[in-house]
């Protein structure tokens, strides 16, 4: 079970981020700004890598709703990280259609290559991985996605996973 993780770091959103929030809020009728909650949480996660309790409190204040309304949403949906993750979170589809074309061996390979268990972060802070449910790419499995842009990597093989991991390492300057 996920639980909301606290942190002492207070959160103040930048004017740029707040401008993005405002753009989202403008899509709904007056008084229905709570509709912006899911998109705003995505923006927060893209900025900070995860959504902390103080960040959720700040979102609640921004949208003029209670903190609990933010917590209950953030903990319901699987995409929001309630604790820090690696810079690159590899999310591998583990559902039926991907499973029958080899999702489990791919996850085992990733675990071995990164040397961390599902949900843990590598020591250098670069990687985490986890199995997720159907990503609507069933014809191109096995697949994985990496946020915050949710880029897809399809028809995975052990070799293509190795290349992806070393490319990401290089990109991060390690």
């Amino acid at each position, binding site marked *: 079970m996920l639980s909301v993780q606290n942190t002492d770091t207070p959160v103040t959103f930048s004017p740029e981020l707040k401008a993005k929030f405002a753009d989202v809020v403008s899509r709904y009728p007056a008084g229905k700004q709570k509709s912006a*909650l899911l998109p705003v949480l995505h923006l927060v996660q893209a900025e900070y890598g995860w959504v902390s309790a103080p960040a959720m409190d700040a979102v609640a204040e921004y*949208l003029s709703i209670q903190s609990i309304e933010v917590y209950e949403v953030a903990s*319901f949906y699987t995409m929001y990280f309630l604790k820090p993750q690696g810079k690159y979170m590899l999310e591998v589809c583990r559902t*039926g259609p991907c499973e029958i074309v080899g999702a489990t061996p791919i996850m085992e390979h990733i675990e071995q290559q990164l040397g961390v268990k599902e949900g843990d972060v590598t020591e250098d802070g670069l990687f985490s991985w986890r199995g997720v449910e159907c990503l609507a790419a069933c014809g*191109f499995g096995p697949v994985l*996605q990496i946020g915050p842009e949710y880029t897809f990597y399809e028809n995975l093989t052990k070799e293509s996973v190795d290349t992806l991991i070393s490319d990401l390492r290089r990109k991060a300057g390690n």
Partner: protein
Amino acid sequence: MARKLLLEHINVPGINTFDVYRSKGGYAAVEKALKTLTPEEIVEEVKKSGLRGRGGAGFPTGMKWSFLAKPEGVARYLVCNGDESEPGTFKDRFLMTYIPHLLIEGMIVSSFALGANTSYIYLRGEMMPQIRILEKAIAEAKAKGFLGKNILGTGYDLELYVQPGGGAYICGEETALLESLEGKRGNPRIKPPFPAIAGLYGCPTVVNNVESIAAVVPIINDGGEEYAKIGIGRSTGTKLISAGGNLKRPGVYEIELGLSAEEFVYGDDYCQGIANGKRLKAVVAGGSSVPILPANLFLKTINNEARLMSYESLSDGGFATGTMLGSGGFIAYDEDQCIVRNTWNFARFYHHESCGQCSPCREGTGWMEKVLHRLEYGHGKMSDIDLLVDVSKKIEGNTICPLGDAAAWPVASAIRHFRDEFEWHVTSAYEATTRNYGLAHYADPLNAVVA
């Protein structure tokens, strides 16, 4: 060659841009609808077309539209369901990625028909790339006067927005989707009231699948009667089938409803048979929620008639020997696949995705997952098999939303058709962890299996 209404221009370079899409006749349906038809006439065309919802339930779209309440001075909404999370289904993502303007065009025509001035396209949050694609397409259409105020000088105003979900299969259920769009947890609502009376923000709302809305474009261009000429019986028009699993050529295919199932699996224009020279063992024809069938019952109905890819033919035989077209999420299993493992995998999926509101669903899905896990890993008992059937029966029909049924059917059907494979997992528990049961008799001629 089969007629293509949605994917005809899919291979045209640049078809994702407004200009190329327009040069191929795009947005003609908007011009025709807004300038020459009344909203009532559009609803009438959609009724005549016989179009049935492409999201899974197959409810007639025109009829759904005609149920929309129209109280004076109350906003009405059209919400497009792009949650696409049903295992096996990946057609909407494909359509939105490659030909986004088709959906935008369909949204404009449909919103006009329903009298909506603000419409939302709700996409699962993982579809961030498609959100960007659609937002770009919306901006292009707006710049050309097809969205915004006074569209094409007709006085009709429409704003269109894309809303991301947060990762939850249940938000594909239309009332959970509306909750989610209101910024809440995706807990399905008790019906009635139906969204047509009280939907988004309590206002009359229509929720339609991406493909249903896209299909409105050819219906308006060619007329409902022309559309209804395609297909077979009450399965009119074309349908996107997303084919995955152990196929030689998986992918998204637009078929004319009524195509033979055999042609779809083995035909050169379609999946070209099973990958790696293997044989077909089983098929899930319409997304993970529909009953799984052994190869022989998928290819032929119990009366030894060729099975067709249509709503009626796939459900021929009821749940005893048939299945459903569902969302068109087609999964093929080759002879090396283990049905017990697959059933466990699906049960885990539904347990993970249950919103938890109803005890039969919340507890039952977890229970089924646990029992299937022990069967798959060699600790099962013979009585577990009937226990699973019993649990599935107690979920079915006893929940707020159809996710409970969707979780029960794959388990019940797997045991119905593959019971010997489940039994083998008990009697040969160790062996079952080292090899799979194989094709067995699942592809044998029908008279040999059905006594």
